[in-house]
């Protein structure tokens, strides 16, 4: 099932063309890797998909609701003075999934505890999320996205703050998650060598164009 399609999307900031006539179709279970140099338009493309940026022209057709999209930003580190703990931050994924009025379900509490363990965040679960390391922040953001149980998961440079072991573990986790849940994953990265061969579709962006 096609969950989102971009038709001739262009983005222009002032006089700079960031994306030019991008056409992309995303179906359930897709694992798409967008690669390209800095400034190629990878992050903007992800922001378009989650509604954080508006295209200058073109249209987006989506067959999923807003809360079925989870986004992990490139700069995963929250504000240094953010008063939210790691546990509370991960639980915001459940808030997005269930809505702000619904009572927290016990399965979400259990789910957040499992994710905290899975992503090695047990020692910092009650720490303020602005006081953890960059790698921990990145894992926290991914755990939050997993708890949301999205149909479309957008990851912007998810390996940027991770060491080699964490990169490999995360890659395996993402591939397994994609296979198990049929969630479409779109990942922007310039590190594609650590991904297992043949599991994903690669899109190369250069100066805002798909090549």
């Amino acid at each position, binding site marked *: 099932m096609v969950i989102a399609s971009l038709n001739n999307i262009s983005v222009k900031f002032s006089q700079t063309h960031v994306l030019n006539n991008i056409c992309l179709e995303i179906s359930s279970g897709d694992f798409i890797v967008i690669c390209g140099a800095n400034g190629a338009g990878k992050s903007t493309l992800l922001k378009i998909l*989650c*509604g*954080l940026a508006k295209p200058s022209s073109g249209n987006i057709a989506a067959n999923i*609701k*807003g*809360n*079925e*999209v*989870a*986004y992990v*930003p490139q700069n995963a580190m*929250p504000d*240094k*003075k*953010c*008063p*939210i*703990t790691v546990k*509370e*931050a991960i*639980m*915001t*994924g459940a*808030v*997005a999934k269930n809505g*702000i*009025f619904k009572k*927290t379900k016990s399965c979400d509490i259990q789910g957040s505890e499992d994710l905290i363990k899975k992503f090695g965040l047990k020692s910092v679960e009650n720490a*303020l*999320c*602005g*006081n953890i390391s960059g790698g921990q922040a990145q894992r926290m*953001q991914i755990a*939050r996205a997993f708890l*949301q149980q*999205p149909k479309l998961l*957008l990851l912007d440079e998810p390996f940027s703050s991770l060491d080699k072991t964490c990169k490999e573990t995360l890659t395996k986790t993402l591939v397994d998650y994609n296979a198990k849940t049929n969630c479409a994953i779109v990942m922007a990265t310039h590190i594609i060598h650590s991904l297992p061969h043949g599991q994903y579709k690669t899109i190369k962006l250069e100066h805002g164009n798909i090549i």
Partner: protein
Amino acid sequence: MEILFNFAGLSAQPFLIRAFIASGLCAISCAIVGVWVFFFKIPFVALTMAHAAFAGAVIGIFFGLNPVVSAVVFCLAAAFFIAPLAQKGNFSANASTSIIFSFMLGLAFLFMALIQENRALALSLMWGSPLTVSVRDIYFIAACAAAVLTFLVVFNKGIIAVIFSRDLAKASGIAEKPIFYALIILCALSVSVNISGIGGLLIYSLITIPTATAYQFSQKIKPMYFLSALFALAACWLGLLASYIFNLPTGASVVLMACLIFFISLCFAKNNNHYK
């Protein structure tokens, strides 16, 4: 409350009880709003609201209207114009806030000069006087405190998600804009209904100082709500007592008491410099 009065050697007179109830309710709403203002880093918005409330109240007096009602109207108008003005002018919300701030300040001084009668009443709105609050004022203040507390309880999860990250909340379908604007509107309401008690120019201090004091003891949001309310309550009631006993201007006493508590807290607070 009588214990507090007896402790201070005062008799529980009705106007004093009204003042304590009004300032207590004001402390609670301002403290909670203060935590939001602190973590969204929008103190300038709160300052602008204070001046909008003052301008609204002065204009209300000029036209013979209820100053609290006109203060609410002006505050809400200021809150609604911040975002569209920034969008239209293609600049940041801070820039549009500063324009609204200047506009409101200009209006306030213009109408202050134009007021022939009731100038003393208009001046008292600048510094406030909880000792003269009426029962009707208390109803307004109580309704505002109830609205702030209800919003906090009902929307707590949404508030946490938006404070964590407005972008992530938006990207994952949480209604971040309505929550954020509701917070600004509640800030506007808290400022405007409390104008007669604390004063248009001083209410801003009661929003920011108790939260800054609370931050010296806890950086987590839940304890901060409680601590901020506690310090605001202490500042209001001790300031009120000091003003009554030593015959000082009440708004100024409350704000100076809040500052004193803040400086004392700096001596006892844990070291927060781990951010550096």
